[in-house]
């Protein structure tokens, strides 16, 4: 069973605020799912070549040129932002 502290630590890393009630629920849920995937432990010493090529049959590079977007797309992107100042996304002070 994952302990409460671990769940809180994961939630923090994942940047998700959780209530105490949720913490208890996730403790149970995550433990059960982790127990289920633990069957992978049976594969202790298996050597496999080429895991990275599992899917990338094609990797077509595009030319290194800037894509010119029309003003309308820029407008739409700005409209989706929670706060805009001088045509840029406004965020909280970090430092």
């Amino acid at each position, binding site marked *: 069973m994952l302990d409460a502290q671990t769940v809180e630590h994961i939630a923090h890393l994942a940047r998700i605020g959780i209530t105490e009630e949720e913490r208890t629920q996730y403790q149970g*849920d995550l433990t059960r799912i982790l127990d289920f995937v633990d069957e992978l432990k049976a594969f202790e010493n298996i050597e496999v070549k080429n895991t990275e090529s599992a899917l990338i049959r094609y990797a*077509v590079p*595009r030319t290194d040129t800037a894509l010119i977007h029309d003003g309308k797309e820029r407008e739409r992107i700005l409209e989706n932002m929670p706060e805009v100042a001088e045509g840029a996304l406004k*965020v909280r002070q970090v430092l």
Partner: protein
Amino acid sequence: MIRQLHQQLVEGKITAEALALEYLSRIEKNDKEIGAYLTLLEKEGILERARQVDTKIARGEEIDLLEGIPGAIKDNILVEGVRATAGSKILENYTAPHDATVVTRLKEAGAVFLGKTNMDEFAMGSSTENSAYQVTKNPRDITRVPGGSSGGSAAAVASGMAVWSLGSDTGGSIRQPAAFCGIVGLKPTYGRVSRSGLMAMASSLDQIGTFTESVEDAAILLSRIAGEDPMDNTAAPTLTNKSFEDELIGDIKGVRIGIPEEYMSDSIDPSIREALQAAKKNLESLGAVLVPVSLPHTKMALAVYYVLMPAEVSSNIARLDGIRFGVTHTDTDGQKSGDSLLDTYLKNREHGLGKEVKRRVMLGTYALSSGYYDAYYGKADRVRALIRQDFEEVFKTVDVLFTPTTPEVAFPVGEKTTDPLTMYLSDIYTVTANLAGVPALSLPIGDKDGLPIGGQFLSKWFDEEGLLRVAHALEQKQEEIKKAK
């Protein structure tokens, strides 16, 4: 169905405008009950597109097969200027700034878009009950789920509220709802269709695909959305000038069809077993050769999937922080929440994301965290390679594989919502295709007291021709038998 509608358009028996109006009126009449659509496109815009097609026909210009044919798009695929929520509260005010590549291609083909369909939040779920907005009902029995995560897209086609629709499939999200709703669902090879403009869930598994009434319709759509794209470097060039619909020759004599023993567990519904037997007989009567085969690592697939998928999810969902993407949470006093940047993130994600998304993000974060990375992600990645090798081996001796799509028929709404692990088991026969990257298609092969049963075909990487040809031949045979009765 697309070809017939196209014929009627060309012959002047119907107009594209009348066709669009017919589908809009069906939506108005039936969607309150089904709940397939989240957002409808503006009516005047829909009719304007349809009228353009009518003008072309009136001028005697040639039109594409898909031109003027109305369809729907899953809400995690962008259509410029239209709201795209992906079933999440955090994107309730998000408007797509541009078209997904598939949408651009369908626009070029002249297709008409009706609306955006409901889905499990960010495609995480197998029943469409995880949408922040509404629960979609199965049109065959409204007390049951349509499957998921592309449940809205499946229900729209199955209830005649769209001729075709697009979905996305990360672990079965097209094939499982297609099976539950009794229609054709196609997940193409990873890399066959550009993912640009699809909101990423698990990038090494996601693939855009189609829902249609027939295999030919799936082929028609695939021909129009497939191909390389500078915006997605995994999207492969199409090496043939032939359209997929031209490959449906009906002849499957001598085609070798593998029947994997691992897909016939004891937990499978007896009615599904029977339907599969009947389908196998039909395939044999068409001259196909059935070969018992084994994919020994299949039993590990679900465990591998539930490590790799959440790991990729936790990374992809990180951008949904209420600042770069999504709604900033507002406290009850009307103030933007959070004292610090960290606090803002925590609150935005706490209030903006649903339970299942949080569960998977946390699971993935744990699997990738220091000290656990190799035990979970590293190992799952290695076992994934073994699963892929199983397919490489088996496709040396057979052309396609035939399995059930799901172990059971559509389940009642609410039955599995309290137990995530039971819900995950719905994907047991579909996740392997995503892990290996091979194409797969679900075809209706029977029913259990009116609830549809799906049979799944899988083929070699980039052999959608073979996949569609076999599925089409079986579909035609089943039609023939139905007519004879």
